[in-house]
């Protein structure tokens, strides 16, 4: 055809005005539009019966119920599940993209064995034999890492490790572990939850509760409902985020010093006339906070004005049903003392095990005998262990099994973590995706994806009440993958380690039974919820009180505020293909991510908008560009976690840089847990 598209368009545009009134042109135009719309492949829509199935989404730090819509048996979209206590019909941007991940270009389609610098395909039988052999060889020198705090697969894996005689069962870092340790410091025992729904004043110390922290979907619903009830939300943190955008106010506070603010507020409250002398631990606590945290000192450390601190204290006291929620901006990295600081404020306000306050949930029942229980696992510190392996302080495991986690990408002290994994004799990854850990593993036993397997979740961290969810597969595995829970039981049997269960379904049934839940009803979609909270005998700090360690300002370095934005992924998942469009142009330029500085800070450093910079800490270095954003504290740089993948696919690989490299951890003396919420960095022109 002699007419190209451009000249055709100008022809039509020029001639059309006069001809619109004749009907002839319509037919012609419809025909011509067919050849202007030249494309090689037209996806045919397929129709069929529409159904919805309850399913679980564990892509963020949370685990909540979704509904997967299927058409003719094909899952097409995911929606919130109005019947699930942690969804209430809401969903996060990862849940919204969850169905497409079934066919992500990063799916591992069959078992793979490392072969030089690449992988070769092997059969499931070969993979299972191989792993069973490795288990027998390794003896008790095995370790496991799980990224799933809520599911029973973790129990099976930990059971296998326990049966082999090892206590090296670890979780990826999060806030469950320091929260449990914090509760123990106050004499309590259990899982910490927050009854946001029934609070009438919510003070969010660092917690990006509506963006990435805790049960995001549920938090969103609770926030939405409380708007109508006039509940006040106050966000305290170093930078504005999704939560602060809708909160009633934002109180800028230096990165990671929110717990100091909590103790400062506590000091003000303790100094009020109300008689609390009969409360266990009050006298020494009051004395401690009033001496260690006088207003001017707290104002100096946190950057929050003294008047604002007393104002917050007064509002909390007046509120009636206030709730204080302490967390790191990125949902990890705070120490136990720091979380205990926020918790003690709730205690001072008499908000523990109260409606609209902090709730203490019972631990999940233990059904796999040889497994470490949650409390023990939370006390095992992965960052410290891997750092010690890297430094030669601890023996490298002969066999390291990783499930539902990506430690080669998402750990603080990352270089050491990677070095430790390199030192491990044999690394097995149970992952649905070719993530960084799978890419460096010796054996990949691809786990079936969320909607292809039976799965369960007991009370994700932050849940306001005990809850348990069981979901059946929505579809058969689309590739040659198998659910890790079943694979582990087969391998255990082959290695002659009896875990007491033949199938993963039996494990879940046992857990449901232990909870008094009905398995059959649950797989149909009913969630189990309980209102039983173990009684607690709390005292205001039973461990020695000590001042919180705060990274010292040196006038040269900046405080790093790492943040999570679920739309770009989490510690577990890279940017899903459908989510790249949710990245704004001021969040990424080409493949460069933006870090945020306010104008004053940028000026001090001689930096302008879009400048390429190098950010360095004692942990490592990152590259980025500068965006001037006035919603950031002075001398603070905000950087997004979740970018800079080296594995995965075109939708996430090489986009931005991995901010985990900057997270250098230290060890909290009393609890032995790693903390990395207050890292200092230098920012210089690249």
């Amino acid at each position, binding site marked *: 055809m002699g007419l190209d598209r451009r000249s*055709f*368009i100008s022809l*039509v545009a020029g001639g*059309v*005005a006069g001809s*619109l009134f004749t009907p002839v042109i319509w037919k012609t135009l*419809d025909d011509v*539009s*067919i050849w202007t*719309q030249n*494309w*090689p*492949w*037209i*996806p045919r*829509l397929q129709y069929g019966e529409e159904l919805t199935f309850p399913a679980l989404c564990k892509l963020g730090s949370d685990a909540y119920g979704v509904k997967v819509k299927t*058409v003719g048996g*094909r899952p*097409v*979209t995911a*929606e*919130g599940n109005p019947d699930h206590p942690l969804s209430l019909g*809401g*969903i*996060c*941007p990862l*849940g*919204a*993209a969850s169905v*497409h991940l079934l066919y992500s270009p990063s799916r591992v389609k069959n078992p793979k064995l490392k072969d030089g610098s690449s992988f070769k395909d092997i059969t499931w039988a070969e993979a299972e034999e191989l792993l069973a052999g490795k288990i027998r060889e390794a003896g008790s020198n095995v370790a496991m890492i799980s990224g799933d705090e809520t599911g029973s697969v973790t129990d099976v894996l930990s059971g296998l490790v326990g049966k082999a005689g090892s206590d090296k069962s670890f979780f990826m870092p999060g806030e469950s572990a320091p929260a449990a340790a914090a509760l123990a410091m106050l004499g309590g025992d259990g899982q910490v939850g927050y009854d946001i729904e029934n609070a009438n004043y919510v003070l969010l110390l660092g917690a990006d509760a*509506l963006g990435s922290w805790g049960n*995001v979907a549920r938090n*969103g*619903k609770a*926030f*939405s409902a409380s*708007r109508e009830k006039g509940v006040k939300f106050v966000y305290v943190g170093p930078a504005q985020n999704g*939560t602060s*955008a*809708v909160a009633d106010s934002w109180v*800028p506070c230096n990165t990671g010093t929110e717990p100091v603010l909590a103790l400062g507020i506590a000091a003000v409250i303790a100094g009020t006339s109300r008689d609390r002398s009969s409360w266990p631990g009050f006298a020494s606590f009051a004395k401690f906070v009033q001496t260690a945290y006088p207003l001017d000192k707290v104002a100096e450390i946190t950057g929050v004005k003294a008047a604002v601190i007393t104002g917050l204290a007064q509002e909390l006291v007046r509120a009636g049903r206030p709730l204080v929620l302490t967390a790191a901006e990125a949902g990890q990295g705070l120490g136990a003392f720091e979380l205990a600081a926020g918790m003690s404020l709730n205690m001072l306000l008499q908000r523990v095990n109260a409606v609209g306050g902090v709730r203490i949930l019972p631990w999940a029942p233990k059904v796999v005998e040889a497994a470490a229980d949650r409390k023990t696992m939370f006390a095992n510190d992965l960052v410290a262990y891997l750092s010690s392996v890297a430094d030669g302080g601890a023996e490298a495991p002969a066999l390291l099994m990783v499930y539902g986690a990506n430690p080669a990408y998402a750990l603080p002290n990352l270089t050491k973590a990677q070095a430790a994994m390199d030192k491990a004799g044999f690394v097995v990854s149970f992952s649905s995706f070719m993530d960084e850990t799978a890419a460096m593993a010796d054996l990949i036993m691809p786990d079936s994806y969320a909607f292809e397997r039976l799965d369960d979740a007991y009370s994700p961290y932050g849940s306001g009440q005990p809850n348990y969810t069981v979901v059946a597969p929505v579809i058969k595995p*689309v590739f040659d993958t198998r659910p890790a829970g079943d694979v582990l039981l087969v391998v255990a049997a082959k290695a002659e380690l009896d875990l007491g269960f033949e199938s993963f379904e039996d494990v879940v049934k046992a857990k449901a039974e232990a909870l008094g839940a009905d398995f059959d009803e649950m797989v149909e979609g009913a969630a189990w919820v309980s209102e039983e909270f173990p009684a607690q005998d709390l005292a205001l700090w039973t461990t020695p009180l000590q001042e919180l360690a705060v990274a010292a300002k040196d006038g040269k370095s900046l405080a790093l505020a790492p943040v999570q934005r679920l*739309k770009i992924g989490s510690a577990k998942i890279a940017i*899903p293909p*459908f*989510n*790249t*469009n*949710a*990245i*704004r*142009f*001021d969040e990424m330029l080409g493949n460069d991510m933006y870090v945020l500085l*306010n104008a004053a800070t940028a000026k001090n450093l001689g930096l302008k908008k879009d400048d390429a910079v190098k950010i360095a800490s004692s942990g490592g270095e990152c590259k980025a560009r500068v965006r001037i954003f*006035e*919603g950031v*504290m002075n001398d603070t740089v905000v950087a997004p976690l979740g970018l800079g993948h080296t594995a995965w696919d*075109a*939708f996430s690989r090489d*986009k931005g840089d991995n901010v985990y490299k900057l997270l250098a951890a230290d060890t909290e003396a009393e609890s032995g847990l790693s903390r990395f919420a207050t890292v200092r960095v230098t920012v210089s022109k690249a």
Partner: protein
Amino acid sequence: MQAKEFKVKWGMLVDLDKCTGCGACTVACRAENNLPPEADAANKLRTNDWMNIYELSNEKPFPDHEVAYLPRPCMQCGHPSCSTVCPVVATLKDEEGGIVSQVYPRCIGCRYCMAACPYHARYFNWFDPIWPEGMEKVLTPYASARPRGVVEKCTFCHHRFMAAKEQARMNGEDPTELAEDAYIPACAEICPTGAIKFGNLKNPEHEVSKLAASKYAFRLLEKLGTDPQVYYYSKREWVRKLGDNYLKNAKGGEHV
């Protein structure tokens, strides 16, 4: 041009005091309407985002700075600028409900409508819709995949409207009297904070009609007289003020 009046006028109201800018609506919209994944979508020059989220700033320095997030679907204008300039009448507002339609097979890709739309709500398909291998299996049956070379936009998930009408007819109900929850677009349904409300602006029972009448409600660029069916809501005065010149202040979406 005189706007056509409809008995039913579907409207959306986005409460900017509830939107956290999370992006769930953007993702849900893509999934529902079969927009293909785009690897380099941070570069907005050639992207296709029916539902785009802008970051608004009060432009004050730290610590007085504030942000708000503004999700932007097609405004389904009462006086659409796009349809008046379309040489082939591929876009029209002529159906009960007042949704501006876009007839893809008729679109010749001249992009006059894009130039005319003051909201940047229309997108040109620069590329063939390519799904990673196998991912085409998640295509919904609701919206045919559009070819390269046409302009497309948000339709208030028109297919859900059709399905709701169909359902009403099957139940022997009046399809012009749909209940508030009978027809909800994907973005409104998925929003975790319930920031997006949807309903018939002409039905006093529907929440949108009440909220749209509030003094805190506003529409974008009202002075242009496009009469949008998308309302925004904010108790923050600076946010409302930006409504009339948001292009100057918006951060994001400098697409062509």
